[in-house]
């Protein structure tokens, strides 16, 4: 599945322009621009005001934000919150949303973009089922938190007794978790690819001992390993995305493929981050240099919607369930 290069160029241009003139943080003006271009609800259905595009386009849009270093809860808004609201038959307007899965006590830790959203689509368990409500952020108790790169990851608390919600079946909640996990894999991959490109540029332009760093075999090998690991992460993530899109997120092997993608992307980040900083030397550790926009982001994102270890565990559990006779079938399904 290839996405129209002109569309990708337009996506890049929107974020690049914002970055050049307003910095990394998303502003109401950026959201407004995204809405006017049909990018804010890229995958929403057309009757509900969305653009009717698919996840391949959304993956490019997500990657464009990562590449330009613009921090925005756009995937959470379009791919998770508004999708979920549409699923439940709710009305989708122009408000910026995020999604939050509460526990039985009505709390959730580290909710992405909670304080930055105008409304939050809540889901919570209710006697074996789930319920959903679209609530103004002002009506919720928000305790500020951030991840490694300063993105809002807030604790959210709601009074479940006072909430009435539409019933949502467990399958939809399972799809929500798959989508959330894959978004972070897509973001990690985009960050790793950007770190690769920066490392190639730096090694080609920086001279030491009378020649470019790129001419040192030891440096070539560091960068070759960055490229290899970033490629594996991307391949595994695309394999999961392809299975998801072609089966409307219902492929029987989808949980395995997502686990594979998150494991590969998480471990790829170890090599890419270590090697990229090694190639850059001390300058790469400074605030003014932009390498950290990718390396720190990759480390922050690889542990969200589940730690790398938890994804390794999920793949391990799947392997044990498949057993000796079924492991290869699991991998090739």
């Amino acid at each position, binding site marked *: 599945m290839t996405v129209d290069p002109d569309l990708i160029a337009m996506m890049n241009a929107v974020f690049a322009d914002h970055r050049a003139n307003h910095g990394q943080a998303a502003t109401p003006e950026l959201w407004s621009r995204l809405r006017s271009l049909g990018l804010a609800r890229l995958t929403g259905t057309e009757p509900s005001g969305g653009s009717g595009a698919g996840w391949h386009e959304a993956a490019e849009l997500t990657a464009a934000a990562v590449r330009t270093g613009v921090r925005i809860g756009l995937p959470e808004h379009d791919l998770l919150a508004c999708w979920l609201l549409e699923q439940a038959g709710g009305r989708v307007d122009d408000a910026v949303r995020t999604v939050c899965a509460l526990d039985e006590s009505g709390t959730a830790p580290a909710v992405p973009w909670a304080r930055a959203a105008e409304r939050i689509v809540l889901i919570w368990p209710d006697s074996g089922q789930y319920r959903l409500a679209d609530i103004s952020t002002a009506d919720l108790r928000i305790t500020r938190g951030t991840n490694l790169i300063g993105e809002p990851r807030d604790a959210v608390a709601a009074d479940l007794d006072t909430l009435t919600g539409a019933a949502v079946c467990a399958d939809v909640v399972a799809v929500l978790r798959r989508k959330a996990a894959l978004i972070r894999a897509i973001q990690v991959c985009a960050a790793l690819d950007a770190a*690769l490109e920066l490392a190639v540029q730096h090694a080609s332009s920086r001279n030491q001992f009378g020649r470019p760093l790129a001419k040192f075999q030891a440096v070539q090998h560091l960068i070759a390993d960055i490229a290899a690991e970033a490629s594996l992460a991307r391949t595994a993530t695309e394999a999961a995305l392809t299975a998801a899109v072609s089966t409307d997120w219902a492929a029987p092997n989808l949980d395995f493929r997502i686990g594979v993608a998150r494991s590969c992307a998480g471990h790829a980040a170890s090599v890419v981050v270590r090697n990229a900083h090694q190639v850059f030397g001390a300058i790469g550790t400074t605030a003014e240099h932009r390498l950290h926009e990718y390396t720190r982001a990759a480390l922050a994102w690889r542990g969200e919607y589940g730690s790398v270890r938890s994804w390794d565990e999920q793949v391990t559990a799947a392997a044990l369930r498949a057993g000796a006779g079924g492991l290869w079938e699991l991998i090739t399904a």
Partner: protein
Amino acid sequence: MAQLLMPITRPVPAVHPDAADTAALRAEVRAFLAEQRAAGTYTPAVDAWLCSWNEEFTGALAARGWLGMTVPKEYGGQGRSFLERFVVTEELLAAGAPVAAHWIADRQIVPSLLKYGTETQKREFLPKIAAGQCFFGIGMSEPDSGSDLASVRTRAVRIDRGWRLTGTKVWTSGAHRAHAFIVLARSAPVDPANRHAGLSQFIVRFADPGVEVRPIISMNGRHHFNEVILDEVFVPDDMVFGEIGNGWQQVTSELSFERSGPERLLSTFVLLPALADEMAQQRIPHDAGLGRLVARIAGLHHMSAAVAVALERHQPADVPAAVVKVLGTSTEGDIAEFADLHAGDDSALSRDTRALIDAAVDQRPGFTLRGGTNEVLRGVIARGLGLR
């Protein structure tokens, strides 16, 4: 404000959505393998594509039409796609099946013959390869030419009606059992300005006069490799392979087939199901490192398939093939290492699993050497990125 990044050119092609169209073929091969195991034809082994020579099994594969799959029917083959061959080989490797006898012939001699062979050579060798009756070796490395292949010193001297070859080849796996190999030799003096010129390839039979095969015993006492000494071996003109002087280009075109295949990641795969079983039975402690390795193999399976599709379409694949081989051979080694770290005199592992682990740690050093060392391949990747 620094310049903004644009999407980079991807080093590895996009994932191929293969599952649906190859599922039936996979099922067919799996059923065949189950039958063969039940009949006691083989027990799954580590690094079986180098170590497990079983001509009976090779014959059974030929009878099913799973040798020389990409060979056109007119030359005794099946006329099937490269991707179908990929699926069959992947299944055989994952099962640790004994494929060493036909491996070199089927993997790289077939595509080379189809590309460079004369009509006579194709008629002579392809039907026998597809029938599982003709086995090949590789004649590239020499005692003084390992990774630096352009430095080969085996000489080919023009004589009446053919060529005379003198020199020594090493690491020719299976030469003591196979029929022929393709020798890379220097047919013109070295041109310092173009080291890759003046090389040519010749088809040489191990039974030919002047050919001597000497065993090279591996550190665990087993015999897979050989040294092959060529002492004024006569090669008739009709056994010149490809064009005189074009040897380098011919050899490097083989390499993408040699480097990106599933054997570059599945040499130790049989350990993963064995370890999953040991872990499920609680004979080794629960360890999420298993999932990490399963995930890498799954990712590499998709990557290797994507390269197979690129090769089928005749797209350049040297860089992606190098990526697959660097990652794959490291991972198959990591699987051996992971297993060995669980294997002590205090662990309850089964005798069969222990035997697989012992074989795996002995074979492991070879994984990242054969077919181009990972250091050379990182150089190939770096060149693809514009660093050299």
